């Protein structure tokens, strides 16, 4: 992030007009939970790839903190193995790695023990001296949420959190889940903001790091042809799907607690709703964008009664089935899942956004595990023709599909004449595919988000009020679906697009889910 000069300071004469992509400020990244999966699979490979692409400042260091006993060298070896396995660029470049690993340190210890933080301070001071990290810190909480309070308290007590206006910056990146309901999210926000300023807090939602999700903003606000029709006059309804063919992949304990509403809807899917439905921001900066997103969340009509939830929400849980020719077990046969579990692995929801732009346009969202394939997309269905010249049912309404993953891109479906002497329309697709149009490999979501956090750009991170507003929406559903007298989720066979009741959600309004 460019340094903001104080009033009595001479402005930097060499800064103005530079066109180069600047690397991030010098800093030390401290990963709490460094022996865990996230650090191995995502964080350290992402940092390494930033080094490869030249975005990482050379004045940089990583300090891993976790309970496992390990030396600096063992930690570096462990991370090299992880990078070799999980990095998107292979093989590991020895020259880049040598410099990258030279800034790696490890602090073993319990988060409860103040001595761990005293040793952390020693390592950070040493990095300041030897790697010129200049007192800048990025703390990454790659830990279960239960560890957040103690980490914040210990960092604060050890004097490792600077004031927001200090020249040495402290930033804290917090992984989801950010709370498990509105009350716990509020409590956690209070706790975080007792030790940090909101400007120092980066609540990460890796969906926002995906190129296609960011492209949604460019697509909507850098093209003049779409914005005029992006409203209730032209849009009939919107479908958002986030499906995975994977099951819970050994995370039974987590999933039993979370379920699909906490795991996907409260964060990723509602973010997609926000970006699809928001008004143009007044500027492309963190607060202007987030101000518009929060308005969408506030405009989503709350479900205030069990009847409303019953009419607009369908939960499901997968049973044994087969995906791509392979038999897969049902949710209740998965490891660490209790028999008779009521945790939903699928949800379909009909949302109404009560705003000038969207009133009367339903947003249907669905997300599930063990779907036939991995597919995340936003499909904007336009109004049908008021009068068909070419015969009843001869044309289909236009659909604009933004594919978030895989095959990232945009497709618009429209009618074209089938060659021949008669006027026979057929629906055809016009395709834009990221992979072929821009041959450059897209950075992983974590690369983009870590770089933004190091630069201090919060645009792609969720703000306190956003998190709470999203929990309010999901909380209203959870209050009903997790009550003792709520019916269990509808079973659906693994390898299908959810229970038939989810189809009914649209069918009763004369619509159907897109076949993906």
């Amino acid at each position, binding site marked *: 992030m*460019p*340094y903001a*000069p104080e009033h009595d*300071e*001479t*402005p*930097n*004469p*060499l*800064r*103005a*007009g*530079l*066109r*180069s992509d*600047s*690397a991030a*400020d*010098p800093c030390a990244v401290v990963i709490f939970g460094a022996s865990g999966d996230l650090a191995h699979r995502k964080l350290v490979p992402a940092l390494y790839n930033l*080094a*490869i*692409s*030249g975005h*990482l*400042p*050379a*004045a940089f260091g990583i300090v891993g903190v976790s309970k496992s006993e390990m030396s600096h060298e063992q930690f570096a070896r462990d991370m090299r193995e992880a990078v070799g396995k999980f990095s998107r*660029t292979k*093989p590991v*470049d020895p*020259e*880049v790695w040598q*410099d990258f690993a030279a800034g790696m340190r490890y602090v073993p210890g319990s988060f409860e023990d103040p001595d761990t933080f005293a040793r952390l301070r020693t390592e950070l001071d040493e990095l300041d001296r030897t*790697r*010129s990290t*200049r007192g800048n810190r990025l703390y990454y909480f790659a830990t279960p949420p239960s560890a957040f309070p103690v980490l914040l308290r210990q960092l604060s007590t050890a004097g490792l959190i600077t004031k927001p206006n200090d*020249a*040495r910056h402290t930033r804290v990146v917090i992984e989801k889940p950010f709370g498990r309901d509105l009350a716990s999210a509020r409590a956690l926000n209070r706790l975080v903001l007792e030790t940090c300023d909101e400007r120092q807090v980066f609540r990460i939602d890796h969906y926002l790091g995906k190129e296609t999700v960011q492209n949604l903003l460019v697509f909507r606000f850098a093209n003049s042809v779409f914005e005029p029709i992006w409203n209730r006059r032209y849009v009939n309804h919107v479908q958002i799907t986030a499906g995975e063919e994977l099951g819970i992949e050994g995370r039974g304990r987590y999933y039993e607690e979370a379920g699909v509403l906490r795991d996907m809807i409260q964060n990723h899917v509602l973010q997609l709703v926000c970006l699809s439905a928001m008004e143009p921001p007044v500027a492309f900066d963190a607060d202007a964008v987030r101000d518009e997103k929060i308005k969408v969340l506030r405009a989503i009509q709350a479900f205030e009664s069990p009847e409303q939830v019953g009419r607009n929400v369908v939960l499901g849980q997968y049973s044994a089935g087969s995906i791509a020719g392979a038999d897969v077990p049902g949710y209740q046969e998965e490891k660490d899942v209790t028999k008779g579990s009521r945790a939903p692995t699928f949800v379909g929801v009909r949302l109404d956004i009560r705003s000038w732009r969207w009133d009367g346009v339903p947003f249907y969202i669905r997300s599930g595990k063990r779907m036939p394939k991995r597919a995340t997309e936003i499909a904007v269905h336009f109004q049908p023709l008021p009068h068909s010249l070419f015969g009843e049912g001869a044309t289909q309404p236009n659909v604009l599909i933004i594919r978030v993953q895989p095959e990232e891109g945009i497709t618009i479906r429209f009618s074209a004449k089938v060659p021949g002497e008669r006027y026979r329309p057929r629906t055809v697709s016009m*395709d834009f*595919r990221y*992979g*072929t*149009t*821009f*041959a*450059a490999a897209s950075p992983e979501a974590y690369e983009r988000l870590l770089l933004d956090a190091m630069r201090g750009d919060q645009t792609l991170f969720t703000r306190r009020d956003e998190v709470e507003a999203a929990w309010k929406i999901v909380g209203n559903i959870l209050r009903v679906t997790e009550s003792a007298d709520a019916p269990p989720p509808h079973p659906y066979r693994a390898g299908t697009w959810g229970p038939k009741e989810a189809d009914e959600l649209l069918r009763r309004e004369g619509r159907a889910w897109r076949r993906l």
Partner: protein
Amino acid sequence: MSDGFGEPISAGGSPHAGELTVRFDKTIDLTRIEALLRQARERGGVAPETVATLNLVAVYFNAAQYERARESLEVAGALHPCRLVVLIGDELIEQESLGAAVSVVRSGGAITVERIVLSATGRSVRHLESAMMGLLRPELPMVVVWGGRPQGGLLRHVAESADRIITDSGARPPTFLPELAKLLASGAPIGDLAWSRIFPWQSLAADTLDLPNLREHRGNIRKARVVCAGAVGAEGLLLLGWVQSRIRRVEVEIAAEGHAEPEDPSQHSTPIPRAAPVGLGHVKLFELVAPPATISLVRERGILLAQVRGDDDGFCAHRLRLPPETPGRLLAAELRLLSGTDELYAQAAQLAAKLVAERS
């Protein structure tokens, strides 16, 4: 007109694998070229999707110049899918000849580069410009890569129709800069790979002056000094021109020391591109003197290092990893700007041209 597929063509060198070539007698038949392009697209079955974001026109004055730049153009084309029209006009060969070689580059299931190489010798060179205009894809911006000296009417015509012209003053003697500055002054939308090459030096210098203990020196920079490898080159001159454009009344000094670094053979054995070795005329050292402090930016292999004397003695103040800067990647970086002039570059080039005049 005679056409011979697979025949060598004069001035264009030997055909490359997958190229379809054609010779013309007097005029260039654009329909024939379009037909060859269709044929190239459809090789191996149904033509895949063709994507293009710009018309990239590359101009060279002999086949060898193009062969040296061929890979760079392909790399840049992969990052910015395009119709690539290469013009090779060799007037030193008296015998007139006209020919075209057509091929496509496929990537990720689509055609990302449609390449048409037009070669001419002798008086036939005059046909290249009009043929090029007829081969551009409509609606897309036109960026010209200029591979030689700014000579003749061709560049003037190209400058009039192109949205942007990219050259590499670093590959030419410093006297090229005043010629370039003249074109810039007339409003030609010129980009320069030598300018892209000094981005890391500029960033590091600016970042260093943002460091808390060095901000006090911002208003006190009296002198800037650059040392180039082996000979004074355009990068060093542009770097000083940039400093002069940002800081009034700064004294500047440029010198050449030592030699260029030899090519690193391991550069080609890794799939990951590295920072290029320090070439002839490239910057080795950049110093800003703000008494009592001197901020020195030096290059150590792939790292730029900022050191400060007279303030934090001998202490490494800041480090920056140099990005890989193969010509293809530099060109791809320059292609991010598809029209207009980088004003900062235009100012730096004018001042760099003055430095050249003062030195001669």
